[in-house]
């Protein structure tokens, strides 16, 4: 089944409806996408700012710019992994390209991240970081995070239907990932050993570093690194989509 204007219309409707429903009955609504990491920032700042935050300008903002993308990644991939089951009637009884369900879930979380990054932008200003042209790179980094979440979600959503244990395994992995991502420590804290190499293999590390370069340092990120991340995550998203399409004829049976 090919994509056309009707697929785009469906993607739009699914994204908007999922986004509306997510925080519909809550008092703070979409603000939770920012408030949630903010509460965690308070806790981490209290315990770590003397040791791990030493020598870091605006450690609170440093934490925020690590936690917001990490929390978004964790929430988005966890929800998108389950989306074929959450929207079971659509998976089982409607005829359209099913990857649209995963893409719409990912997009609805990208809206959250964009709003949360708007707040981070405001926070950076309060911390004294001056607005600059480098911040025009923000949409590109948001796109990289979208592609990263997309390829992980496409793979997880298929794997989850085939074996439901994946959800528990992935939740455990996310807890480990918090420590494998420089959210509350700096790269220099890791030294030059194996730990540093492991952390640099984590694609989320690079996205977070880009957000910090733009919003914390107010600097333009290296163009080559940005292109590299767009290409790698784009290729991985393409590969994950092919895998998803190969599994698609079996999805309705496994739901």
């Amino acid at each position, binding site marked *: 089944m090919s994509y056309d204007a009707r697929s785009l219309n469906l993607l739009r409707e699914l994204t908007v409806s999922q986004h509306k429903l997510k925080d519909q009955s809550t008092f703070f609504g979409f603000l939770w996408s920012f408030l949630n990491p903010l509460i965690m920032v308070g806790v981490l700042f209290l315990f770590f700012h003397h040791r791990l935050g030493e020598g870091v300008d605006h450690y609170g903002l440093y934490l925020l710019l690590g936690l917001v993308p990490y929390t978004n990644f964790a929430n988005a991939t966890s929800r998108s992994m389950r989306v074929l089951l959450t929207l079971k009637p659509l998976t089982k009884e409607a005829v359209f390209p099913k990857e649209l369900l995963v893409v719409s879930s990912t997009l609805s979380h990208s809206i959250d991240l964009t709003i949360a990054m708007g707040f981070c932008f405001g926070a950076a200003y309060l911390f004294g970081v001056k607005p600059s042209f480098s911040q025009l790179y923000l949409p590109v980094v948001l796109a990289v995070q979208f592609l990263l979440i997309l390829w992980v979600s496409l793979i997880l959503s298929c794997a989850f239907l085939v074996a439901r*244990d994946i959800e528990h395994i992935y939740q455990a992995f996310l807890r480990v990932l918090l420590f494998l991502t420089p959210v509350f420590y700096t790269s220099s804290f890791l030294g030059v050993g194996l730990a540093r190499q492991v952390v640099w293999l984590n694609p989320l590390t690079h996205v977070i570093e880009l957000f910090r370069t733009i919003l914390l340092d107010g600097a333009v990120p290296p163009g080559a690194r940005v292109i590299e991340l767009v290409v790698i995550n784009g290729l991985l998203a393409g590969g994950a989509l092919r895998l998803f399409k190969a599994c698609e004829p079996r999805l309705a049976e496994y739901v």
Partner: protein
Amino acid sequence: MLVVRGLVKEFAAGGHRPTVYRLVRSLLDGGKTSGARMRALDGIDLDVRTGELVGVVGENGAGKTTLLKTIAGLYAPTQGSVEVGGEVALLAGLGVGMIEELSVAENIYLYGAVCRLRRRTIKDRFDTIVQWAELEGCVDDELRTLSSGMRSRLAFGVAMQITSDVILMDEAFNAGDGRFQDRCEEFLRETKGMERTVLVATHNLEFVSSFCNRTLWLHRGRQKAFGPTEVVLPEYRTFVSRRVELTGSEVDQLPGSLRGVQ
């Protein structure tokens, strides 16, 4: 146009949820422990021409829904082939994907998108849909405040706008009151004149008798008969009326005389 050849569809029997353990065990022993299989469809052959309206009848568990979902591409055939000339729409349960917490207007756009309609089409026909569903005063109300009859009307009002070449209906118009069903039938009468192929799985034999050119009779996944409605339907009615008197293997033997009907 729709051509089905030697269609077989099997599912894992017992409905055990897959786990990592079962998956690994199955991979290690080459699928020997992947469990028993249940054959839901067994050797279905169909040739349906453009413009035909075909009724699919059979008892519960006969394979009607499985057949429609396999033709729609939701299930991959275990054996055999399905060839569809054009785009397929499946109406298996009206209002699939509609959301209780969203308004009637939002659900029209959402369900319209699920039915593969363009946004422009939905916008242009919005008032017609609302009028057909008789929901003029409730456009901003949440869907959950509507009765099941009102929801059925709303969903059918949207589904009527579908322009697909092949439409598969699974008990789509059994909801609602008599008036709603009359209006659905009116729509199907109009559809019959269009260049569309329609398959309707139903227990409503009066509907099949009135609208369907040909009828497919399924029994326990097998094709008992496929032919002109005036030939197949009386045999099926006989089967249903005698069904209460017969059990087990006798039931399997009953319609054997119809196997050759095409």
